[in-house]
C-alpha cells in the first residue's frame, strides 16, 4: 500500500507540472502571471525559481498571441503547456484553438500534429462575476480535433497532465475554480491516469447521476442524501468531455434506467443536451423515466452570493430531480 499524504488540488496540479518539467526537457509553461506572480490561482507558485524563466514564461495579456505561440512551439517539437486564466478569456484565443490547433493535423494530411496542452480555470462559485465564471467547456467539446478533459479529483489533477502531454494532439484541461482548495489524501506514488474513461465515483442501482468537474462534489453530496431516503444513486464522473465515454454511460443507464445530468453549463445547446440525445439514440428502450438536467440558470452568472448560489446547480435541486425521476416508491 502506498502511503497517503494530505494535499490539495492546487498542489496536485503543481506536482504534475513539476514532474512534467523534470521528466521532459521539451515541456515548458507559459501564460499570464504564471511566473513572477505564481499563477492567478497560485498553481505555478515557486516554479519560476526552480525551473527558470526559459521554462516558466510570463506572457503579455494577449491570449491569441501566446496560444498561437504555443501552437508554433508544438509544431516545432516542443511540449508546451499554456495556462489561460479562465475559460472566459480563452475566447480571445478561439481562433487559434479552433481554427489552428484543432485543424492542422487534418489540413496537413497528418504531416503536422500539435502536441499542445492548454490548462484553464472554469466555472463559478467564488463571486468572480459573469466575465470570469462561465462554464464553456461544453463549447470546446463541440470541436473535433481537440480533446477536452475535466479533472474533478486529486488523482486526476495529479495524473491527467502527463497523459495529456503524451497525446499527439491538443488537449484542453478544465480546472473548476472551486476545486483548487479542495483538500484530501493522495497516494505518494500517484501518477499519470488515463484520460479516456469515465469513472463511477459511487455505485448505485436506482438512477445515474452524470456529472464532471466542479459539480462532482455536489452530486456526491446529493447521492448521500438520497441514500438516506433509500434511493441508491450511481454517480458518474465523465472526466473526458470529448470524446464522451458513451459505453460507460450506457452501461450505467442499462443498469439504473433513470438519468439526471448535473452540469454547470447552461442547458441550451449544451453538453448535457448532447448526452441526453445520445442516450435516447442508443438506450431508448432502457429508459424508465424522462431524463432530467440540473444546469445553471440561463443567465450570465451573477456576482452577489445569493444570486450566484441560486443560479448554480445545488445538491438540493439534484436531490429533488432525482426523487422526481425515481417517482413514488411503492
Amino acid at each position, binding site marked *: 500500500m502506498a502511503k497517503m499524504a494530505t494535499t490539495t488540488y492546487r498542489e496536485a496540479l503543481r506536482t504534475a507540472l513539476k514532474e512534467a518539467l523534470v521528466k521532459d526537457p521539451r515541456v515548458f509553461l507559459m501564460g499570464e502571471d504564471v511566473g513572477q506572480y505564481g499563477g492567478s490561482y497560485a498553481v505555478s507558485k515557486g516554479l519560476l525559481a526552480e525551473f527558470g524563466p526559459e521554462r516558466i514564461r510570463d506572457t503579455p495579456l494577449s491570449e491569441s498571441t501566446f496560444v498561437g505561440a504555443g501552437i508554433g512551439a508544438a509544431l516545432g517539437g516542443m511540449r508546451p503547456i499554456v495556462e489561460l486564466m479562465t475559460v472566459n478569456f480563452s475566447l480571445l484565443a478561439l481562433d487559434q484553438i479552433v481554427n489552428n490547433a484543432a485543424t492542422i493535423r487534418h489540413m496537413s494530411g497528418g504531416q503536422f500534429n500539435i502536441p499542445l496542452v492548454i490548462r484553464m480555470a472554469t466555472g463559478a462559485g467564488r463571486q468572480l462575476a459573469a466575465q470570469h465564471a462561465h462554464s464553456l467547456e461544453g463549447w470546446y467539446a463541440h470541436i473535433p480535433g481537440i480533446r477536452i478533459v475535466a479533472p474533478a479529483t486529486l488523482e486526476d489533477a495529479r495524473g491527467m497532465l502527463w497523459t495529456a502531454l503524451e497525446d499527439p494532439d491538443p488537449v484542453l484541461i478544465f480546472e473548476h475554480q472551486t476545486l483548487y482548495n479542495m483538500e484530501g489524501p493522495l497516494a505518494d506514488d500517484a501518477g499519470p491516469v488515463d484520460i479516456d474513461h469515465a469513472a463511477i465515483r459511487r455505485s448505485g442501482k436506482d438512477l445515474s447521476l452524470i456529472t464532471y468537474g466542479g459539480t462532482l462534489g455536489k452530486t456526491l453530496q446529493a447521492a448521500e442524501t438520497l441514500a438516506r431516503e433509500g434511493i441508491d444513486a450511481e454517480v458518474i464522473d465523465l472526466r473526458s468531455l470529448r470524446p464522451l465515454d458513451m459505453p460507460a454511460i450506457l452501461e450505467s443507464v442499462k443498469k439504473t*434506467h433513470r438519468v439526471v445530468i448535473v452540469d454547470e453549463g447552461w442547458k441550451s445547446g449544451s453538453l448535457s443536451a448532447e448526452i441526453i440525445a445520445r442516450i435516447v439514440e442508443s438506450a*431508448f428502450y432502457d429508459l*424508465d423515466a424522462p431524463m432530467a438536467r440540473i444546469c445553471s440558470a440561463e443567465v450570465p452568472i451573477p456576482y452577489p452570493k445569493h444570486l450566484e448560489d441560486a443560479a448554480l446547480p445545488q445538491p438540493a435541486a439534484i436531490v429533488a430531480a432525482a426523487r422526481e425521476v425515481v417517482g413514488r416508491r411503492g
Partner: protein
Amino acid sequence: MPSLGSDMEAGTLVQWLKHPGDAVKRGDIIAVVDTQKGAIEIEVFEEGVIESVQIKQGEKVPVGTVLAMIRGTGPERPRVPAATAPPSAPAREGPPTPAAVSAPQKRPHEEPSRLRVSPLARKLAADLGVDVTQVEGTGSGGAITREDVERAAAALKTSAAHKPSAPTARAGDMRAAIASAMARSKREIPHYYLSSTIDMSGSLAWLRAENEKRPVAERLLPVALLIKAVGLALREVPELNGYWIDGAFREGTGVHVGCAISLRGGGLVAPGLHDADRMDLGTLMRQLTDLVARARTGSLKSSDLADPTITVTNLGDQGAEAAFGIIYPPQVALVGFGKIAERPWVCSGKIEARPLLTATLSADHRATDGHRGGAFLAAVDRLLQAPEKL
C-alpha cells in the same frame, strides 16, 4: 358512458343517483344505465364533488361520452378557476372526464390521449403480456414504470392463481387479445375450409376396452386420440404445421399442437402440447390434463404459449356438430372436432347408426391449397381407424 362489454356501443342514462353539489367517493353508485344486458349501476372511481352532469335522464349516448364532471377535492386546488384553470377547461382541476366513470383503470390526472408509460415499461409490458391500461403508475407524474409493470405482472399471476373465478380485468384483457388476434386473422388470412365425417366406432370401442384396463387416473378421453392423430397426420402434410411469417411459410420445428381451452367465466387460451406426434397416448392425456388444469387456474407458463405450430379445437361431447375455426396467426391451420354423435352411416350398402365425428380444417390459402388440406383430413381419418397404432 362506460363500456360494459365489448359489444356495447351506447347506453341510456336511466337515472342520476347523485346530483351537482353532491360529494362522491370511490365506489359510490352515481347513476343507472340501461344496456342490452339490462340496467347496470355505474360506479365512480374518483373522489370529489359533482360539478355538473352533462347527460339528461333518458338520454342515450355512445360509449365514451362524458356523463358528468367531478371536481377533485384538496386544499391546493382553487375553487375559482384561476390562470392555470381557465373556465373552459374544468377538467384540468378535477379532471374526471370520461375516465372518471368509464375506465376505472385510468388515473384521474391523465390526459385521455396517451398513457404515460416509460419506454422500458412499455417494452417490458409487451414482453410480459401486461396491458398497460390496467397498470397503476407510480413514476413521475403518474407514469408507468418498469416496477409498476413487474408488479402488475406478478399480481396478474397471483390473482389468476388464487381466484380464477373473478378476474374481471383479466377476462377483459383476454377478450381484447382474442378480439385483436381473431380480427387480424380474418383480415389477413385467406381461409379455406374443408370438412370430413369420420366413423369413430372403432376408436371408441378400442378406447372403452383400453379404459377398462386403466386405473381412473390413467383413463383416456377421445380427444387424446384426436390430438395424436393430428400430430401424426401433420408428419404427412408438414406444410400445415408452422407459421406464415414475412410472406413465406416456415415449417415448425416439431409438432406442437395448441389446444383451444375455454375458461370458466369466458375466454379462451390455446397452449401447446409439445411434440404431440411423439407421445404415447397415456403421456399425451396426462400432459393435456395438466395443461387444461393450469390453463383454468391461470398458471400457464410462457413456454406453453410460445410456439404451438397448429391449433386444435375440440368441442367435446357437449358441443356442436362441427367447428369452422379462425386460424390463430401466425399459424397456418386450425383443426376443429365437433361432438361425436350417433348418426346414420352407410356401410357396405347398408345404413347403420354409428358414432360420427365431423373433422374440419381451416387453413391459410397462402400456405397450402385444398388438395393438401384434403390429404391431411384423409390421414386423420385413416389414423383414427387404427387406434391401437396411435
